[in-house]
């Protein structure tokens, strides 16, 4: 009797885990808002490597980036009830939390950000990072996706790419970017708009061509 119950409990748990791992982000966030820690774990498994990648890109310090990763998901746990799906997808909200935390941490450290990109457009810090607990297949898929995205970004003219990277990854205002690049504010506005429009076009083309 007890063994049957244990087996039944185990089956229910596995079923629940499978259901969570397949659930849409928005469903999981709703579960998190109700205090379901397994739903948070599912979101973590889904996006932790992305969040750590972005945090590391901004802060340039593995230990700090890991702290930001944990803090990001802790905030998701605490604030899931405030997420509003009508304002955009969960990933936008998640990355915004991570990015803002990383930029704040970077500003507190008051050090220069890492180089925007290497000479060939690659990111030397990220390429040097070991992945000790890597799920090889999943990681390969994520890396492939990143390569396609990166390719789309790299297809932009350098001056346009630079503006949106300075704004997004380093939290620089348009005035700061204008000052840093020595360009007129109007030029910065134009470059940012063109960059985002072209990036969108590149991504659509990439998606279309598979």
């Amino acid at each position, binding site marked *: 009797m007890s063994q049957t119950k244990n087996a039944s409990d185990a089956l229910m748990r596995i079923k629940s885990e499978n259901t969570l791992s397949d659930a849409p982000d928005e469903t999981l966030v709703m579960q998190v808002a109700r205090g379901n820690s397994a739903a*948070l774990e599912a979101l973590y498994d889904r996006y932790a490597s992305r969040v750590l990648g972005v945090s590391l890109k901004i802060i340039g310090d593995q230990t700090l980036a890991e702290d930001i990763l*944990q803090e990001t998901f802790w905030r998701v746990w605490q604030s899931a009830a405030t997420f509003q799906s009508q304002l*955009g997808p969960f990933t936008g909200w998640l990355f915004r939390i991570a990015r803002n935390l990383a930029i704040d941490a970077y500003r507190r450290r008051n050090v220069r950000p890492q180089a925007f990109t290497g000479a060939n457009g690659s990111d030397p810090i990220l390429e040097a990072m070991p992945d000790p607990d890597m799920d090889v297949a999943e990681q390969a898929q994520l890396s492939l996706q990143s390569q396609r995205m990166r390719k789309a970004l790299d297809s932009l003219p350098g001056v346009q790419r630079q503006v949106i990277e300075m704004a997004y990854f380093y939290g620089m*205002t348009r005035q700061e970017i204008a000052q840093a690049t020595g360009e007129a504010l109007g030029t910065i506005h134009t470059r940012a708009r063109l*960059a985002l429009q072209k990036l969108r076009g590149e991504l659509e083309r990439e998606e279309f061509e598979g």
Partner: protein
Amino acid sequence: MYPRIEELLPFYVLDALTEEEKELVEAYLAEHPEGRAQVQDLQSGASALPYTIAPVEPPRQVKESLMRRVTADAQARERSSARASGERSPRGLRFDNLFRVLSLGAATVAILWAFALHSQVTRLQDQISSLNEQVAAQSQSLDELIRNLPQTEQSDIISVSLKSTETQPRALGQLIADPNDQSAMLVISGLPPLEPGKTYQVWLIGNAPVSAGLLTVDENGQSVLIITSEESIGSFTSVGISIEPEGGSGEPTGEIVVLSDL
């Protein structure tokens, strides 16, 4: 109308505006659907930026540390929620149940008393007006008690009206109990005091009658008895009261004055 606001939109989707600029943009967007459409277009480009960065698999201990923190918080929330909802220990629950039983019992006593008082007033219509005022006051108390009844009935507590037999047709009573609990309250009226050497005995009846205690009524024929049982009250099918020799009997031997299904 806002010629320069549109220039801010790329930085709005990149989340790189000052708070003041952000407020300006949001005020603009609230009134300009074409602005919202532009933002949507630009957003699809900006939302791809995190994906241009190679993912970095975090060490296992980051997740473990996070989940320990989350689990502790979830447990704290549960404890807080339990306190808020008045959840208590099993012992506390038993006292709570008993308290609810007593509260409901007191309400029933008042109801029965009010009924008795009301019938007395009916029989003695020519009595002084102060008695009517008393009845009115009691009726008001009864109303208050009835209004309060739903609050005390949020639990599983049941109240069973007891039926008299032909032997004592004026007997009137209530049994208030949580079927899952082993205690109950019996409130009775309309039973005449017995001659010396005799007593009322309450029986809980399942497969066989089990004595639930001896009952002594006052000069008005009223009594309240707290019943305790080895089994939960819900495991019995009936409740009865019989007249037994002083000290009670092992099983009903005398007249049955009350018998009701639970």
